[in-house]
C-alpha cells in the first residue's frame, strides 16, 4: 500500500510543479513526472509475487507470470508521452522566439 501512496506523492509533486513554476520548461518537466507516476502505478498493480516476466522460452514454459496487459498499455503510453512532450517543447521554443523569455507571467503581460 505504501508504494501506491508514494506513486501518488510523485503525482502530487508533478502537479505542484505544473501549478507553481513560472518557467515553461519546468512545467513540461512537471507533466513528465505526472506521466511517470501513472506508468509506475499501472505496472505495480500488475505485479505478481514470484512471477516471471511474460516471455516464454525452453526453460520457462508455464508458471505464474506477471500480468502482460498493463505492460502493453504502458508500452504504448510511453511513446505517446514522448510525442506529446515533443509537441509541448515545440510550442515552448516558438513562444521563446516570439517573446524572448520562458517566463509565463511575463508572456501574459506582453500579450499581443
Amino acid at each position, binding site marked *: 500500500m505504501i508504494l501506491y501512496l508514494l506513486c501518488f506523492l510523485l503525482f502530487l509533486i508533478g502537479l505542484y510543479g505544473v501549478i507553481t513554476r513560472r518557467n515553461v520548461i519546468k512545467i513540461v518537466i512537471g507533466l513528465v513526472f505526472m506521466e511517470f507516476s501513472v506508468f509506475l502505478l499501472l505496472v505495480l498493480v500488475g505485479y505478481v509475487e514470484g512471477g516471471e*516476466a511474460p*516471455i*516464454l*522460452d*525452453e526453460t520457462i514454459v508455464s508458471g505464474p507470470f506477471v500480468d502482460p496487459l498493463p505492460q502493453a498499455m504502458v*508500452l*504504448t503510453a*510511453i*511513446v505517446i508521452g*514522448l*510525442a506529446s512532450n*515533443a509537441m509541448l*517543447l*515545440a510550442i515552448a*521554443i516558438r513562444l521563446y*522566439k516570439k517573446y524572448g523569455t520562458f517566463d509565463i507571467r511575463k508572456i501574459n503581460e506582453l500579450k499581443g
Partner: protein
Amino acid sequence: MKGMSVIVKKVAQLLSGLIFMYGVYIITHGHLTPGGGFAGGALLAGSMILLVLAFGSDVMGLKKRETGSSIIENSAILVFILFATIAMLVGTRVFFHNFLPGGTLGELISAGVIPLYNIFVGMEVGAALFTIFLALVIYKEEVLK
C-alpha cells in the same frame, strides 16, 4: 549545424552502424525476446540522431532528410493499416485478425502477422522520432540566420 572533432566523428561512424543493426535485431526478434517495434524504432532513431549530432550538416541536407523520414513514417503507418484491412478480407472477417499461420513457438518465422506489424511499427516510430529531432534542429538553424 557544425560537426564535432575527428575523434567524435570516427567513433560515431563506427558505433552508429552497430546501434542500427541492434535496432533491427530488436525489431525482428520482437515476438521472441523483450523489445519489439517501439524499442527498436527508438534505437534506429537514436543511431541516426547520433550521426546528425556528430557530423552536422547544412540546412538543405537536413531538409532533404526530414522529407524522406516523414515519407517513410507515413507510408509505414499506411502499410500497418493495410495489413489490418487485409485481415478483414481473409478468413473470419475481423479487423486485426491474425490471418497467417502461427508456426512453431520460439522460431524466428512464427506468430503469423505479428513480426510484420512489428517491422512497420518500428519503422514508423523511428522515423517519427527522427523527424521531430530534425524539425527542432532545422528550426534552430533558421532562427540563428
